[in-house]
């Protein structure tokens, strides 16, 4: 097999192993009840990290760029209970607008 073939195979197998380990190994059992409070915080913890990393990092660099303006606009839209579609479009349009102004 070519080295490209190995990359495709190992990346796919490794990814499904990472994604599937929890669902297959835990096999539908509920986690111990004393962990309920922990699991309930996994969503907020990971989403907070995803927001931060997708807004304020570029590779290994910490950056504040036009995405931060787009995110601020999204936060205002969320505050006024805009639907998700509107929030996403507002963030993209504001970010693109800021880039056009700067660039």
């Amino acid at each position: 097999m070519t080295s490209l073939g190995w990359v495709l195979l190992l990346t796919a197998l490794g990814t499904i192993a990472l994604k599937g380990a929890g669902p297959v190994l835990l096999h539908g059992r509920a986690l111990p009840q004393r962990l309920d409070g922990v699991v309930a915080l996994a969503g907020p913890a990971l989403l907070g990290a995803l927001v931060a990393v997708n807004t304020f990092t570029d590779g290994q660099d910490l950056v504040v760029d036009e995405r931060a303006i787009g995110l601020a606009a999204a936060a205002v839209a969320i505050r006024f209970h805009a639907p998700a579609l509107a929030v996403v479009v507002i963030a993209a349009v504001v970010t693109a607008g800021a880039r056009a102004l700067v660039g």
Partner: protein
Amino acid sequence: MTEQTRGYREGARAVAPLAIAVGAFGISFGVLARAAGMGVLAPILMSMTTFAGSAQFAAVSVLGAGGAAATAVIAALLLNARYLPLGITIAPWLEGGVWSRLLHAHLMVDESWAVAAEGEGRWNPRVLLAAGAGIWIAWVAGTAIGVASGDLIGDPAAFGMDAAFPALFLALLAPMLRGGKVHAFPGVRFAGHRPIQAAVLGAAIALALTPFTPEGIPIVAASLACLLGLIPQRRREVDT
């Protein structure tokens, strides 16, 4: 107690706002992969089987720069390590056999996982499946367009599409932070501040580690913020 009423239709609808952005990034992945010398079939196969945007971009950039195959695989898997904790969060809510579980797991990406979250530690498998399928189609179709016809749209960032992802994550996070909600676990009652603390701590861990660790590790480490749930707290009885 909220009823689990959302289904496939709601999942597809919830993820629709992102399908265009995902498709656009799929096109750029196809263009980059072709330019990196991967040919036509390999990028499409990779999008179908690995199905993880940032990991695929990382692997292709390593290959394009002449890096070793092992380096490309390691870079991709480090970026995907966050799917281990994400998978654990959805595991209790999946039904069916091993293959059904693997299908749900395969279709779990950041966006489908996020829209399937019902708050308070619950996940909806139907929403996950439909949303994941929608993103998969957009990602694979975008990749195919990118390798076949080249750079149709230019840089998605010029259209602000890179900001669509954190905006969606924030929109999905917000309801989890509003206190006093009903939840799935009798006996666990949040006083309202815990989810906010977890979100802020998760973000802080991720940003603090970003300059010092390989990409992908910060988000995995941020999942440790949920250990806040182990700290005993004064429980406020909420009548809902």
